[in-house]
């Protein structure tokens, strides 16, 4: 036990003495949490909207005015010709283009029915889907308004059947994206810092030759590893704490569930990451290799975690793969506990899987660390 304390002491001294690293460990993550959380939104707004009005009538102008009034669209330009409009589309200056044909008003009054051309840049398929919904909604509302304006109260009809839907958004009434993203990005930052630092740590001593000096001492493997990893565990927990405070103070993210439960889970989770880091460290000869492998797994873990894109939309095999992704569990737990107030029983599956993961990874790490070769 005393031996471990000496190692811990040494590691802390080395961390705090490395002036180049300190800001990267402590300032950069905080900075990113505060700034980047604002970037992660799937909301579709400020849509670049253009139109070609070949009709030039009161009806066509009224319709365009509807788009102008919508908060989703930035009505950009009135294109005199189709050629100019499609050039603007190619340049990326317009994403949604509305074409009102000749004799639009006349035909509408005559036929009581008419169609409009809408062209949507669909490279971002999801956004295009949403844009289509917005356009349809605006046009439907316009339909209703002309009904009132133009329709003579002549033919009495039977009351149409109406199903009234009431959407209720629980836990996040205003559909605020930051509520969703801040806990997730905090997970990433805690993970990245602890993984990169622990992944580099032992391989670094290998590279500068000090590991050999350690290996000729009678120190036990487990003592050495615990001593090495404990400081990173503390850093991870510290980062979580600062992140949670910022989430509350700056973003006003609710903390509905139990804080001790969150800390309990995180304390186990960080062990998983440290185990992975150490395992990578043991299997590589240079820091460069170690970081490259760590980078590879981080990118996969991040993008397959359900943090940015929903897991249930992935194909089945990919969903199975995410079962082996520790970040996935942390993201889930963080959101469940903070935003919904899920309790111990609710997160028990995640907690158990994480604990098993932690055990396996650390067993592998200790096993693969060889004092003798």
């Amino acid at each position, binding site marked *: 036990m005393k031996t471990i*304390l*000496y190692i811990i002491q040494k590691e802390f001294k080395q961390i705090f003495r490395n002036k180049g690293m300190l800001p990267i460990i402590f300032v950069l993550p905080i900075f990113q949490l505060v700034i980047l959380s604002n970037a992660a939104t799937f909301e579709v707004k400020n849509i670049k909207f253009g139109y070609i009005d070949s009709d030039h009538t009161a009806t066509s102008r009224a319709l365009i005015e509807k788009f102008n009034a919508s908060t989703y669209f930035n009505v950009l330009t009135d294109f005199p010709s189709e050629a100019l409009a499609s050039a603007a589309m190619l340049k990326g200056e317009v994403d949604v283009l509305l074409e009102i044909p000749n004799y639009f008003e006349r035909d509408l009054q005559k036929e009581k029915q008419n169609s409009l051309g809408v062209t949507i840049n669909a490279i971002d398929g999801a956004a295009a889907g949403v844009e289509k919904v917005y356009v349809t909604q605006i046009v439907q509302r316009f339909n209703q308004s002309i009904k009132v304006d133009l329709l003579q109260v002549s033919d009495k009809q039977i009351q149409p059947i109406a199903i009234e839907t009431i959407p209720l958004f629980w836990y996040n009434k205003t559909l605020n994206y930051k509520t969703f993203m801040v806990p997730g990005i905090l997970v990433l930052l805690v993970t990245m810092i602890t993984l990169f630092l622990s992944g580099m740590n032992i391989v670094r001593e290998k590279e500068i030759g000090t590991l*050999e000096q350690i290996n*000729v001492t*009678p120190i036990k493997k487990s003592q050495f590893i615990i001593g090495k990893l404990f400081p990173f565990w503390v850093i991870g927990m510290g980062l979580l704490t600062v992140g949670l405070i910022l989430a509350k103070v700056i973003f006003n993210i609710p903390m509905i569930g139990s804080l001790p439960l969150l800390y309990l889970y995180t304390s186990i989770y960080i062990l998983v990451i440290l185990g992975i880091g150490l395992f990578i460290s043991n299997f590589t000869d240079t820091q460069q290799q170690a970081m490259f492998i760590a980078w590879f797994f981080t990118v996969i873990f991040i993008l397959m975690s359900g943090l940015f894109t929903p897991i249930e939309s992935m194909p089945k095999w990919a969903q199975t793969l995410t079962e082996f992704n520790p970040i996935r569990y942390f993201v889930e737990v963080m959101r469940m506990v903070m935003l919904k107030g899920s309790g111990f029983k609710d997160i028990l599956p995640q907690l158990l899987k994480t604990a098993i993961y932690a055990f396996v990874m650390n067993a592998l790490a200790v096993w693969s660390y060889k004092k003798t070769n």
Partner: protein
Amino acid sequence: MDNNTVIQVEGLTKMYGDFAAVDAITFDVKKGEIFGFLGANGAGKTTAMKMLIGISKPTAGKAQVAGFDVYKQAENIKKSIGYMSQKFALYDDLTVKENITFFGGIYGLSRKRIKEKIAILLEELGLEDVSDQLVGALPLGWKQKLSFSVSLIHDPKIVFLDEPTGGVDPITRRQFWEMIYKAAHQGTTVFVTTHYMDEAEYCDRVSIMVNGKIEALDTPKKLKAQFQVDNMNDVFLKLARG
């Protein structure tokens, strides 16, 4: 193994694929001896030493260090030996005092004992003034002396030195050998590799390795007589050229 033998090696071999880096070497080292382990670069000195200090598993042969078997009791060996590597292996980003404290700590010395050791070592090395400086900022000679002291911090029975004087000036080398003598005088067995042949003269006995094999082993005096030359340099040249 009698009480006086602290290292006993028989047919020790390390293979890398088909290549025998250490080819069935046999020798023993007596308590309190300064044993010189000579050879050209790449002769297999460091590989042999790493097997003796328990960080590399031999391919074949037998070896006992401080009464422990290198195969099964490597961790026990580590308690009884000190090691100073060829490459400087203390922490550049810790101070002199912190390095001593750290290694004292992992060898299981008590806080009190570490304090005493720091005082003694700093005085011996004349490093009192720089005890709070980062080791990285010290000149190489001082670093080497510090590494040597650190390898003796737990009063080991045997200390292994791998080319301890590589790259240092003649005066420091001289001081270094005085430290080695002092340690030997206090009963520590010293196992030292070097390729400075003048240093070989300071050893009680030397072995000369060529291509993984020990080609000669005796006191410097007897070796010179055997090869009919006046210095160890010539002994070495005769052997190395075959």
